[in-house]
């Protein structure tokens, strides 16, 4: 049964491409959501969005867009705006002709094409490029033209394949702002592929993290950050609040230890484990905060402390060892100082290799 609120719904998709295989891929994207598909290079992100666009035929599974089963539908019928990684602008057409290309396919009248072109040129600020050929555009300009071409057909879903990966830092930041702005203006569902966590966090309402042709975890960024499903997800997101410890047998079940101190009871089997420490309920102080029934207090020495713009944060000596970027921006604690870290036991989330 397809969720009526879902704009895109992928159920149990499997697809083979050469040696590579997508398997058991299932997720839904709500109407108007900014969905980020995140994962290392070669994990199958592009293959997955190509299947959504209709450029690859799945072996099994279903794809629904706006309630319609599009699994075997021609790409032309899906009304998906696709911006591939290399932009794929037609080199023999001008910017204006490239953007109008999709409109011509939909038998749009010349007056309407002109109005739509003007709207796109204004929205993306590319009016001055209209008579230029793609070979004479910069990377950022090509990106905007490809975006304009995809938006011109008024798509229900806009698919962006690594749109910012080939751009320099400042163009990238500018385009991130523009994408966010466009998303709120258009109320279109966005699917955005990327491999950079910062980009994903800035733009996404929902993240899905992929590895080796499978979705490892999907959900709101805050949920994934506080409860990553496994160590791969935690590592890929470069979670700063990951503490290495060990699960040992105790009298009433297993217990997770950091720096030898018991932290939380757990069902996780004995052996090395990692604890995701909840940042929202964590306090650091130079005086002992006092024991509290449901809380853990760990003692650590400060190994690195920077309040400057470059990598601001705290890193500790022991197993906790994590960096807390920007949580204590105005602290004056010197390196080597002993501090007490306090957080609720129940909030810790354990992961194993």
């Amino acid at each position: 049964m397809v969720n009526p609120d879902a704009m895109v719904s992928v159920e149990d998709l499997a697809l083979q491409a050469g040696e590579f295989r997508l398997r058991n891929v299932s997720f839904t994207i709500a109407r108007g959501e900014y969905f980020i598909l995140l994962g290392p290079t070669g994990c199958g992100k592009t293959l997955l969005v190509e299947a959504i666009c209709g450029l690859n035929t799945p072996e099994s599974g279903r794809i629904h867009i706006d309630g319609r089963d599009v699994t075997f539908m021609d790409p032309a019928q899906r009304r998906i705006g696709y911006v591939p990684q290399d932009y794929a602008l037609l080199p023999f057409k001008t910017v204006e002709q490239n953007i109008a290309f999709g409109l011509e396919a939909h038998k749009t009248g010349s007056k309407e094409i002109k109005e739509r072109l003007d709207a796109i040129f204004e929205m993306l600020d590319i009016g001055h490029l209209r008579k230029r050929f793609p070979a004479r555009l910069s990377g950022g300009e090509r990106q905007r033209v490809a975006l304009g071409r995809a938006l011109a057909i008024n798509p229900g879903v806009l698919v962006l394949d690594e749109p910012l990966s080939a751009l320099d830092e400042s163009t990238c930041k500018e385009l991130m702002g523009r994408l966010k702005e466009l998303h709120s203006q258009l109320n279109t569902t966005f699917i955005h592929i990327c491999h950079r966590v910062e980009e994903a966090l800035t733009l996404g309402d929902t993240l899905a993290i992929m590895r080796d042709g499978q979705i490892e975890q999907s959900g709101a960024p805050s949920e994934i950050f506080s409860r990553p499903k496994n160590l791969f997800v935690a590592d890929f997101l470069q979670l700063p609040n990951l503490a290495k410890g060990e699960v040992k047998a105790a009298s009433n079940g297993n217990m997770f230890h950091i720096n030898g101190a018991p932290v939380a009871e757990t069902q996780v089997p004995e052996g090395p484990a990692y604890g995701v420490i909840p940042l929202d309920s964590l306090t650091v102080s130079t005086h002992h905060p006092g024991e509290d029934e449901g809380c853990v207090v760990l003692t650590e020495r400060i190994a690195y402390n920077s309040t400057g713009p470059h990598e601001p944060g705290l890193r500790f000596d022991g197993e906790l060892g994590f960096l807390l970027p920007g949580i204590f921006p105005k602290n004056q604690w010197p390196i080597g100082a002993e501090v007490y870290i306090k957080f609720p036991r129940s909030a810790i989330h354990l992961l194993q290799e």
Partner: protein
Amino acid sequence: MQAAGCRFYLETRYFFMMHSLRRVGQWPWVSLGAGAILFAYTGFIAILLAANLIYLFSDMADTGATYFSDIFRSPDIRYAAWLTLWTSLLSCVLAILFAVPCAYALSRLRIPAKPLFDMLVDTPIILPKIVVGVTLLVFFQTAMGRGIQGLGLQFVFAPAGIVLAQFLCVSPYALRTVKSSLDAVDTRLEDVSRTLGWSSAQVFWRVTLPMIRNGIVAGGVIAWALAMGLYGPLMVFAGTTRQMTEVLPTSIYLELSVGRIGTALAITMVMVFFAMLALLLFKRLVGGQSLW
């Protein structure tokens, strides 16, 4: 002396830098070497052509013979020229009409036993050209071949046979040229166009064909040039009947075989002149860009 040598080196280097937009760090001898080889190669071709012309005009002065006016006046040569022109153009058009879909199928479709098709396509390239003529002659002796001729279309010792033999010999070259330009087209352009609302057939006309325009023109030029110069298989399959199946390359061969070197060379020079003119025209057709 050393200073002059050094200056010569620097000036030559500067010349190649200016004219080849040499990349930073590129070894200067690479540009010098490549430039020198290009000059030597094209120079050799120019000398060969010049030698032919010198031979023709010096011989003309000695004997008073006017080879050029002779060949223009000869009805046999005029007929052969016209036959060469229309048969080579027709076989070039046919070669392109077959090359484009075949190259598309080889480049884009998942065909079982593709290497086998690939090899069969190239077979006329590997075969000695004269064997193509013999093979055609043998084929038209079979029941199928006789059946085709029975339909009213005469190939053996007929102008249609010239077109068929030329088509067989030149189409693999056209196909290879078109296929290499098709392989170079980013299939993502076609993919994106399909998502924009165009069907696969429309994408072929509106995206793929314009993208391989230069490849098609280049393939056509190669096919036409090869067809113009072909004579071995034509002599075997279509014969050398004057005012019927004699094409210009056959005329050259026949003139040479009876020792009329001057007439043969005059025909050659006229062919070279018109071929060069056609090449220039084709280059204009693709917008002054390089054909291949």
